[in-house]
């Protein structure tokens, strides 16, 4: 008998029934996880070591796919674009979300209306958002350049310019921060008011209260949003795809990692190579997440630990 069956045999009938109930209850989720998550993951890990062209049988080639990506210019370009996008998108959206959440935490009239307005962009489809921004960023007729022209400034080419295409994407990413705002709002509500009252008594100014009370108390929420934000930013796809017409241009300026992966898999049919790319990204995300978690002991304040 195995260890599990031995343990099972030693359990009382009531405990056995309870254990069985547990497994029956989680069975649908477990099956779904195995079929739709675990199996595809491990299958793609296997495929990353094969030459698997669509329509053919996968053939084991060892590390050839990983050696290939080291020499692949598109791999390095997409990694660079994605890294720059992440560095611009995540901190920027964090700062904006905290700022807006602090404004929405004020006791003002119609605050629920304001909260709804700021959350609305988050419920609009990413495709619709990207199409909308493609009009806003239009260098000839777009809203931004039209407003700049009113004050005599010739706006940049935005998505048609190699230098401005990526900043355009970053700016677009700052628009859909409604989800983060809601989370920060909840975090702000959890900060005891007494802390601010004591600070007021001690003569602390607004900035001091912000840096010494708000930020530390909000740090667990910031930590959570940072981890989620980085994971999401490293996998960005819809916005760049729509804005660049699926080409990653101009001149690969918006070729993100996921776009390159999609092209390899579904335009070139190189599923083995695309699987290798997917696993490299997975490792990068794991390492980055581990680094953020490791760093959290230096800057994340958990009140319960006191």
């Amino acid at each position: 008998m195995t260890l599990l069956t031995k343990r099972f045999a030693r359990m009382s009938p009531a405990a056995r029934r309870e254990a069985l109930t547990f497994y029956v209850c989680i069975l649908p989720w477990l099956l779904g996880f195995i079929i739709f998550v675990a199996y595809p993951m491990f299958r793609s890990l296997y495929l990353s070591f094969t030459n698997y062209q669509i329509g053919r049988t996968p053939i084991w080639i060892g590390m050839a796919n990983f050696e290939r990506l080291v020499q692949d210019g598109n791999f390095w370009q997409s990694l660079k674009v994605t890294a720059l996008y992440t560095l611009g998108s995540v901190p920027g959206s964090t700062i904006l979300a905290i700022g807006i959440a602090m404004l929405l935490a004020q006791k003002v009239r119609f605050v629920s209306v304001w909260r709804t307005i700021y959350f609305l962009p988050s419920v609009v489809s990413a495709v619709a958002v990207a199409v909308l921004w493609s009009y806003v960023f239009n260098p000839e007729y777009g809203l931004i350049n039209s407003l700049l022209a009113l004050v005599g400034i010739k706006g940049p080419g935005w998505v048609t310019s190699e230098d401005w295409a990526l900043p355009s994407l970053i700016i677009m990413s700052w628009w859909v921060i409604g989800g983060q705002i809601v989370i920060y709002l909840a975090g702000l509500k959890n900060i005891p008011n007494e802390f601010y009252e004591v600070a007021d008594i001690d003569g602390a100014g607004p900035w001091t209260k912000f840096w010494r009370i708000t930020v530390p108390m909000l740090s667990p929420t910031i930590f959570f949003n940072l981890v989620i934000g980085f994971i999401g930013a490293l996998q960005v796809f819809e916005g760049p795809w729509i804005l660049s017409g699926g080409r990653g241009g101009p001149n690969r300026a918006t070729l993100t990692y996921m776009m390159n992966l999609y092209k390899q898999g579904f335009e070139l049919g190189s599923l083995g190579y695309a699987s290798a790319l997917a696993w490299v990204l997975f490792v990068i995300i794991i390492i980055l997440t581990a680094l953020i978690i490791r760093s959290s002991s230096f800057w994340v304040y958990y009140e319960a630990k006191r």
Partner: protein
Amino acid sequence: MYVHRLTRYYLVGLVITSLISALAVGFFLPRQVVAQDASVTITLGSWDDENGNRRHLAAIEDFQAEYPNIHVEIQPNPGGDWHSRILTLIAAGELPDIYMVDSSYIPLYVESGGLVNLRPFIEGENGFDPEELFYPSVYENGFYKGDPYVLNKDYSTVAVYANRSLFEAAGIELPQEGWTYDDLLDIAMQLTVDANGNNATSPDFDPENIVQYGMDHRGDWWRGFQTTIYSFGSHTISEDGTTLDGYLNSPETIAALEWMQDAVHKYHVAPTNNFILAQPGGVMPLFLEGQIAMVFGMGPWFLSMLEETPGFEYAILPMPHGPGGHHGAVCWAGFGMSPTSEAKDEAWLLLKALATEIGQRHYSEHALSAMPAMMEDKVDHPFWSTFIAEVEYLDPLDDLRNPYYLQCVGTPAGQQITAVLFGEEGANIDAAELVNSLLPEFQQCMDQQGMVESSAEEASS
């Protein structure tokens, strides 16, 4: 007891949910509509929108009248990424029996096992003589490595849409067959006008205030520019599809790129690629508004726009001759057969019908047909005649020489060569240096597909 009851309720709920889900899946699964007396049902995959599918339906109706025992069901996919869908269906083994194919993808689909070699069918009992039916240069665009895999539905040749009114106002005669790229530049300079009414030949011409351009260019669309490259006397890849060096960077290819680069930056007769990209509707609205006098049009697709603009006078001009002569590239779509079709004989009958009279009488209403017989009444038409005449000058497409040409060369070259050279920052870029800097990467992309395949062959041997 309580746990027992909960478990019972839960299990009952789970079973009921599973049954409902199974019923729902069965209800919503696509069902094949089988006519009562149909012995075979075959599927036709189409990327067309509603208008395009109307023509398919009309052709299918005529086909079914002739073959009442074969029922055809259309599987439309309008607006979606057709190529990715086809690759996915190839992987799943669920291709439609017959499906639409862009000629650029023929080599990749063949290498992926997604297309049937049609030679046995063409030369078989229910075949035909292609030389009697089709324009050879059009028919051969469905070939890969010497065998036919796709039969043509329709295609586009390149011609120049010209604003006749602007020509008349400038006192310029419409060019005829035999005109050159030098003539094109000369005419474009006369038709490029600034806000003060000076054209580009005038010493007072202000290139910062152009209100009317003489011509456009194909921007980042490499296929559109291939016509110019062929006319300058080169192709961009060797005939065996393995080598770019000496072709993509040949003196003739560089000369073609430099010609257009000068047209944009030195002579200012064409707008920058950035300007074109910024236009929501592309260049045709600018053409109709008189802001661009000549537009390289890939096909007759803008006829309806012209007809919807009353009073607009236009002419369709032949493509100019380059130093290498008069050559053209084609955009081409057709029908291929899936290797997984379980009714290949019936599928062949449909494919043949769509590519020949039954289908072509419907498709040729709005497009060019590979059958000269379908084009007879358009040969002298002021709009269609030039596009038809361009068939004579078609070159075999470079895309058909390598399964990965489009993805490794065509699309990147448009993004990183023509878009850059004809873009705002392209004035001082050395075309030869740019191409030579990118060529190794394009070659490596094609080779890497082959390298991995070689590794696989070594591993399996």
